[in-house]
């Protein structure tokens, strides 16, 4: 039976259980004045869960183990005796045979896989039948056992609510599992990378050219300092040079000067700027901004200005960050007690004097925290730099020169045609780990700064 049909049958069984149990519970309510802890539908849900959960649990576990069991069964067939010893070839042949058996591919690259395909199909069919039978049996037995418990005195609600609470807890644990998944997978692959390349070469080396890795000394061409510099230069210097003045000034104008009607229109418009997908910014940066920046550079006398300059990518990234900085500044300005502003205005200071000499110094920690969060977002930004920045890692201070970033290199390293565990792909994970750690630190520091500042005024 196909998985979909099986799920359908089990759900149908659960539905039958729900209806019958509900009817039964409703029947023993009739004609008595006794009070019950559970409504009829609680009994219904209890039986439905008793039908569904064991079968689904079994299928989930089965789905993880079955492929291995099928492969084991195939390996015991006589056709498997001529397989090459364990290694990449063997895995490739087995995968091909599996695809042939499942009807996912039509031509076989390897003759042996064509031989093994029937064995695969047979084993798959056998195990599918076992799974179907066991799942149906579990659903039936589970449903029957729970149905037998439906009695007037049985508190089905407690059981149902316990399952619901379990589901709630399980759902919130997924966040922890994801975090652990990120940390473990990054650490694991990075550890394999640092096995090949010394960590000092990676963190302190100043030469980055993954296209030409010397197998005897891979660390010599995998020094990430130019990437760190490029990331810092584009994301934290150029982008912030655009985003901070524009974001801060628009927040000040919108909160202190603009009429409420204007504010109602302009603020969502700025938020649209944040909602535009980064790939659109990247296309705009590559097609419109980058050539303009190069022409500007040539006009300014930098004859070798790159068409993939740091300035183009950074400036567009800065525009993308404007609404983010603006809303953070907005929040911190709003958190300054009105008494401070009123006091300053009452002393005869103009609005701009009040803003510059009272509001901004008071809101500074909040603004700084917001800027740190903005930096963390900018250095993790990928598509703009992938499309508009260059792939050549240089240590330069000139905004018209080309620069590359960590995220750009991760994409370049992983989208090439390299084996999954070559030094190149593993380097991407090491870069990812660095990026993760840096953004995490920035976020933590920013949150501490913002929280301290909030406490000061509350």
């Amino acid at each position, binding site marked *: 039976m196909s998985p979909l049909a099986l799920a359908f049958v089990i759900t149908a069984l659960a539905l039958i259980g729900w209806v019958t149990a509900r009817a039964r519970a409703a029947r023993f309510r009739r004609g008595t004045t006794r009070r019950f802890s559970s409504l009829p539908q609680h009994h219904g849900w209890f039986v439905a869960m008793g039908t569904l959960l064991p079968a689904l649990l079994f299928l989930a576990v089965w789905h993880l183990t079955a492929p291995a069991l099928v492969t084991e069964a195939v390996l015991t067939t006589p056709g498997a005796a001529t397989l090459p010893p364990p290694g990449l070839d063997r895995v490739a042949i087995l995968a091909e045979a599996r695809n042939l058996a499942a009807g996912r591919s039509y031509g076989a690259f390897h003759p042996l896989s064509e031989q093994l395909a029937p064995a695969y199909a047979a084993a798959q069919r056998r195990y599918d039948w076992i799974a179907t039978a066991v799942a149906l049996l579990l659903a039936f037995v589970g449903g029957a056992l729970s149905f037998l418990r439906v009695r007037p005195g049985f508190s089905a*609600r407690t059981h149902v*609510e316990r399952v*619901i609470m379990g589901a*709630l*807890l399980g*759902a*919130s644990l*997924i*966040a*922890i599992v*994801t*975090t652990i*998944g*990120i940390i473990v*997978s*990054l650490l694991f692959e990075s550890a394999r990378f640092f096995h090949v390349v010394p960590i000092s070469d990676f963190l302190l080396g100043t030469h980055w050219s993954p296209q030409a890795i010397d197998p005897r000394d891979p660390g010599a061409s995998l020094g990430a300092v130019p990437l760190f510099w490029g990331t810092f230069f584009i994301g934290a210097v150029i982008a912030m040079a655009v985003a901070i*003045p524009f*974001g801060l*000034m*628009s927040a*000040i*104008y919108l909160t202190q000067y603009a009429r409420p009607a204007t504010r109602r229109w*302009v603020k969502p418009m*700025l938020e*649209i*700027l944040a*909602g535009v*997908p*980064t*790939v*659109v*910014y990247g*296309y*705009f940066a590559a097609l*419109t901004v980058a050539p303009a920046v190069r022409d500007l550079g040539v006009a300014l006398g930098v004859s070798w200005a790159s068409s993939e300059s740091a300035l183009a990518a950074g400036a567009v990234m800065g*525009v993308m960050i404007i609404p983010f900085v603006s809303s953070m500044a907005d929040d911190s300005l709003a958190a300054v007690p009105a008494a401070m502003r009123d006091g300053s205005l009452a002393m005869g200071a*103009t*609005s*701009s*004097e009040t803003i*510059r000499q009272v509001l901004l110094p008071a809101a500074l920690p909040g603004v700084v925290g917001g800027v740190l*969060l903005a930096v963390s*977002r900018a250095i*993790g*930004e*990928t*598509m703009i730099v*992938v*499309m508009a920045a260059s792939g050549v890692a240089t240590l330069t201070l000139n905004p018209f020169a080309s620069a590359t970033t960590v*995220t750009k290199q*991760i*994409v370049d390293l*992983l989208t090439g045609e390299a084996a999954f565990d070559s030094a190149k792909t593993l380097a*991407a*994970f090491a870069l*990812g780990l660095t*990026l*993760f750690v840096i*953004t995490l630190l920035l*976020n933590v520091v920013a949150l501490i700064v913002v929280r301290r500042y909030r406490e000061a005024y509350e």
Partner: protein
Amino acid sequence: MSKSLVPGAPVSAAAPAERRPTDWRTASMQRRVRQRYAAERRFRLLGLAAVVASAAFLLFLLASMLARGAGGFVETRIALPLDLARAGLSVTPAQLRGPRADLALAGAGLERAVDAAAGTVFPRAGGAVLLSDAAWLRVREAVKRDPSLLRRRVTIEVPVASRLDIAFKGGGTRAERALARSLAPHLSRGLNRDFLGGADSTDPTRAGIWGALKGSLLTMLVTLLLAFPIGVLSALYLEEYAPRNRWTDLIEVSINNLAAVPSIIFGLLGLAVFLGTFHMPRSAALVGGLTLALMTTPVIVIAARNAVGAVPPSIRDAARALGASPVQVVFHHVLPLALPGILTGTIIGMARALGETAPLLMIGMRAFIAAPPERLTDPATVLPVQIFLWSDDVQTGFIEKTSAAIIVLLVFLLAMNGLAIYLRNRFETRW
């Protein structure tokens, strides 16, 4: 501040007796006031300039995409006189019925016949070079609809090659534009159905957006089915039931942290776990949806927590007082009241996921996919990745396709955000 704002006024508190009222009419005082007001106006203008510049950038971005992309929805057609009776096609009318008609017509040399017709009608303009790769497919469709075309002379409008298409729309080199002008009597414009209904192609005139759009819809379906229930359930747990202890703090910290992790890191996670450990199919909508779900869940959790927290405690107290269990309080009363806020947050999170590119590149969704995906495990691509792939293509014909795809993506995002705003305004209660 050591200097007094008012010149001549005593700074030290030791000599308060000498204080006199400031004379605001003196020339120096007047000048000071003028300067301060000028500074005020400058500052205010600066703020206005920042707002106007940001808005202008947005408008410029949208306008340039519209101007460049509008042409992508339109194709140039050329009226091509055909005499298929003389072309010597070896097909019988019986072969034109049923599913094997495509093969029969292709085998009979229809493509050659169409190219030859172009060669005889427009010999000086280059003949078959003028036609798009899709031209003979149009003829094939027409013949399938009306087999009598095989026996008479007919004029069919077929799409032209990319270069001529661009030239007719006013781009390309001077020679190409001259060619387009000389052919102008035969050329016409029409809606590009291949773009709206087809999938990726190596020929810009045949490339379509539907394959990527369908991939996006499948991916979003997986994301929504996972992220929405998980996000809402964990928000309910954290906001309503969770005891205040170290575990709860850990969950909160990881959710807040996940919401700020760069999206590309989720791509690395998807690559290492879903592809590396679980051997799921590369570039499938299923894997893309799973990866984006991990990224979107924290956003939904945070939005849902705000919405749930905004429901006043009196509602909960009233329900408890009437004998509802904690689960009934939340699922019968709190959740329905918080739902508009939760949906708003979910739509905004989904809009972000729809525009996301980097994590999907990591899990191999950058392959050339020439057919729309049929199942969740089929190789697929999504709109933003399609935009990225086309933007990388060297053929000039893809420039307008890229911008047109961007327009399609922005229309979807705008619709989603509009829906979120509508929901917020229509249903959200201010307690």
